[in-house]
């Protein structure tokens, strides 16, 4: 009963919750009655637990399914929804020690990782040092992301941060973003992942990494008619003055961020015949409202967001039917962004994207509508929004079990977790993600990576996963260290039992029939050398179709 009450606290409609529980109860009974035909409509408790760990974590660690099964998966989810209550001190200490930039202010990162040039122009050596340090700060971020995904006990937090990382994509290879993305990860994404969507949106809008990545830091009001006239006359007469120089540097609007704010971060791409959409005019007007949202350039310790009144466009504006006087300065943009965050279109767009991420690539309209309702009612309280999905009947439907294809990132992380491997040095894994087309923090399209399976399923890409599976299982993956005694407990087993044990650890939900048959044959051929056989089975399991699913 305690559990039930806690669920209700999260604002999940009681009916849905009860429905979810009763479905599961029936699932267990049915599964016991009819095991061979394996057609139970509902998932068994073990399958549910595996499903939960596949979706709300980057896959189970050895033995974790049984552990969570004993505890009750509902309780596990409850715990995961309160990440601050889960002790992750050891990992965070490791991150602090190995990747100090993750804890620094942006000013500190710039001071530490961007050595000043003493010579003008800089010497070769100076340039090389600066490049090295830039590489270092970029690596620290990507490695921290990988390390946390593999090792954090706050798995659901990591899963959701990965979602928002892709949603509010910034590319660390663009200009200054190299030095700013680390702070962005901590103070925009991680800080608000269980908070309000509007707060995360606002934090991203004011973060130098986003302002630079989508060029808003450069966007300025165009010169007024008088200013333009003064410049034209000066040009004709060949005159110049500090005032005129300053004027000529002040150049005008950049609509990149305003467009993506609508299109990618809140409403989704405008579609004709949809009410409440936006037009090109709205984009330009929004861009005008956001002029002056920029950064304090330079290498000061207090490097950060700045609202520059001088380049802010203070003329009246009209955006989506609403009029603005233009005299409210930064408030104007803040009101607009808050308005976008709580808009119905945003609720629908974000809810659908979250359902795709957590349930399946084509979530039911009903589910999306329900989640959007919770989004609107709770003013974008993400904990409530996630709960609405997790405790919906859809989440545990048999047809959503293993219905998603893992992204390269999800695959690599889950393979390391499944084998209990320690990620000692993330370098090679990070590189492999690049060759699979999913570099961390280096997606140059503001859209982020594709969030549906078919984008990752092209012929050719599986070969990278197979190579990774083989090297991990063979203990040859650089930087990925399997527990030394991993194979020890199973070496004494007969091949059949060995196979069963490995399937049970790596894929507690079982494997598909054909994989099972092929493994059956493989153990007959290779039965002599037990160590080699164990590693072969493990490699095949990690590279099997089933392991690519979640």
């Amino acid at each position: 009963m305690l559990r039930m009450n806690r669920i209700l606290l999260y604002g999940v409609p009681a009916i849905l919750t009860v429905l979810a529980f009763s479905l599961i109860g029936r699932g267990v009974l049915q599964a016991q009655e009819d095991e061979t035909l394996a057609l139970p409509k509902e998932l068994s408790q073990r399958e549910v637990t595996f499903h939960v760990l596949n979706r709300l974590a980057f896959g189970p660690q050895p033995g974790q399914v049984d552990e969570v099964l004993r505890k009750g998966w509902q309780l596990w989810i409850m715990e995961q929804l309160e990440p601050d209550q889960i002790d992750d001190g050891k990992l965070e200490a490791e991150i602090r020690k190995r990747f100090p930039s993750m804890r620094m202010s942006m000013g500190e990162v710039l001071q530490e990782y961007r050595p000043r040039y003493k010579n003008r122009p800089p010497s070769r050596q100076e340039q090389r040092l600066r490049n090295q340090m830039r590489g270092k700060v970029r690596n620290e971020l990507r490695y921290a992301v990988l390390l946390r995904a593999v090792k954090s006990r706050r798995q659901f937090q990591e899963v959701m941060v990965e979602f928002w990382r892709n949603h509010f994509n910034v590319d660390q290879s663009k200009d200054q973003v190299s030095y700013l993305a680390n702070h962005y990860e901590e103070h925009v994404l991680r800080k608000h992942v269980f908070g309000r969507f509007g707060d995360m949106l606002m934090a991203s809008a004011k973060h130098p990494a986003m302002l630079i990545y989508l060029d808003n830091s450069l966007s300025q009001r165009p010169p007024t008619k008088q200013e333009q006239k003064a410049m034209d006359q000066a040009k004709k007469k060949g005159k110049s003055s500090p005032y005129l120089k300053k004027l000529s540097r002040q150049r005008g609007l950049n609509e990149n961020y305003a467009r993506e704010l609508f299109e990618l971060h809140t409403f989704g791409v405008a579609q004709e015949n949809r009410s409440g959409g936006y037009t090109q005019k709205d984009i330009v007007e929004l861009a005008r409202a956001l002029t002056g949202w920029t950064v304090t350039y330079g290498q000061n310790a207090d490097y950060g967001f700045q609202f520059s009144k001088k380049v802010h466009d203070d003329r009246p504006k009209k955006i989506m039917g609403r009029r603005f006087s233009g005299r409210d300065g930064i408030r104007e943009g803040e009101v607009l962004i808050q308005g976008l965050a709580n808009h119905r279109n945003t609720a629908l767009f974000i809810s659908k994207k979250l359902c795709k991420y957590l349930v399946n690539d084509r979530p039911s309209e009903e589910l999306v509508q329900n989640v959007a309702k919770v989004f609107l009612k709770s003013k974008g309280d993400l904990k409530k929004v996630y709960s609405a999905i997790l405790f919906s009947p859809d989440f545990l439907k048999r047809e959503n079990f293993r219905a998603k294809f893992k992204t390269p990132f999800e695959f690599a992380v889950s393979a390391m977790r499944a084998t209990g491997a320690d990620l000692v040095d993330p370098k090679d894994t990070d590189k492999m993600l690049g060759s699979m087309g999913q570099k961390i923090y280096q997606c140059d399209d503001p859209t982020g990576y594709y969030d549906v399976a078919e984008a990752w399923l092209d012929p050719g890409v599986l070969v990278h996963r197979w190579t990774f599976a083989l090297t991990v299982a063979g203990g040859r993956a650089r930087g990925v260290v399997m527990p030394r005694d991993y194979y020890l407990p199973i070496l004494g087993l007969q091949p059949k039992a060995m196979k069963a044990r490995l399937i049970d650890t790596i894929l507690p939900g079982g494997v598909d029939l054909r994989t099972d048959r092929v493994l059956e044959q493989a153990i007959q051929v290779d039965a002599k050398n037990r160590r080699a056989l164990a590693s072969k089975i493990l490699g095949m399991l990690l590279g099997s179709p089933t392991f690519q699913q979640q």
Partner: protein
Amino acid sequence: MKQTRRDFLKNTGSTVLGAGALGLLGPQLSFGDNSKWKAAQPPTLVVVYLRGGADSLNTVIPIRDPLYQQLRPTIGIPPKDTKDEKGALPLASLFGLNPSMAPLYEYYKKGMFVPIINAGSPHQTRSHFDAQDFMEYAAPGVRSITEGWLNRYLSLTKKDSDSELRAVAMQPLLPRSLRGEYPVLAVPSSLGTGVALDAFDSLYMCKEDREMMMRAEREERKRARTDEEVAGYIRQSGQNTIQMLRKVEEITSRARQSRVRYPETRFGKQMKSLAQLITGNVGLEVASVDYRGWDHHARQGGSEGKMSNMLGDVSAGLGAFAEDLGPRMNRVLVLCMSEFGRTVRENGNNGSDHGHGGFMLALGGMVKGKKVYGKWTGLETAQLWRGRDMPVHTDFRSVFFETLYRVFGLKKELNQFFPDWRPGQDAESKPLNFLNSI
């Protein structure tokens, strides 16, 4: 999953072409029956997609339009070399080519390279991903189409005797134009994958003990479980991976060493590998390469700078490719395209914002050369699309249509190829006649 692999012809309201539509292009040699290619190699279409909305006005430059320099005071490219700046390379009529594109300019002079101006999609979107989707599906505004136009071509002309490698993308993920029912290989950037292929052969090919596998498959079908169905798709993709990659490994291991120097860039390497696959004579018909990063909202630069450097890389890579292939270029057509052009006026940050009409480039022996194709209507505000962007005077589908017709000899198959569109239906859809038949 099922829904995404939809049968294109069943699910779209395609327009049937009038009998006269094909007549717009005049006579051609027939390659419609690709059994003829068994002896000779089929022609190859290479699509280079410039992602991000590449700026047309700094690529194919209207140097003799006085408004150009006015509208682009900072990023404009001068007509001739000046003291500090390189000037445009003169093309036909009032145009010039970006000065960083000297290697392609050589092919322009040889009549093998032509630009097409004011080309693009009639759809109004200025969103990257909508515009790219619409173009790669060749179906602007039609969201029910989920198969790329190049994949549709492959499906339409499918034969039992097809080569394993009719189509490839030289990158880790397929572009949307190649995604669909027909299996296409995304070629890994580094090879040497043989060990992995051998290790997973049995698990994915399921060749051993056929009878047992067929029983398992039947049982799976009976159970109709989503998870096993998804596993089936993955297995299918794995089977294609094994078959196709084996072929690629085989070709590259016996490939001749080229003496042509490609640029040491990602694009240069991609074009070099592609030339190996083409000269490996394995029946490659379609290849695709993405070139990212054309969204120059800031610091786009003029004769020099970010965009010109990228154009220089594209140009050097394509120049080396054409040189490497030599006479084979008579049977190869390279098409460069981007989702849209950019604003005519430069923006506040020495860059340009999302626009409408863009450009295409064509390289190959089939090109009718020494011309700039497409209609030019000037830069006066009244002539611009919505007063700010270049207009679209050539619908990209008319270029695709002509390409499929001339390069691959499709005829009646083209009847339903483009949903809700037929050549010549409006002024923008009239084919340009920029290609000769092979």
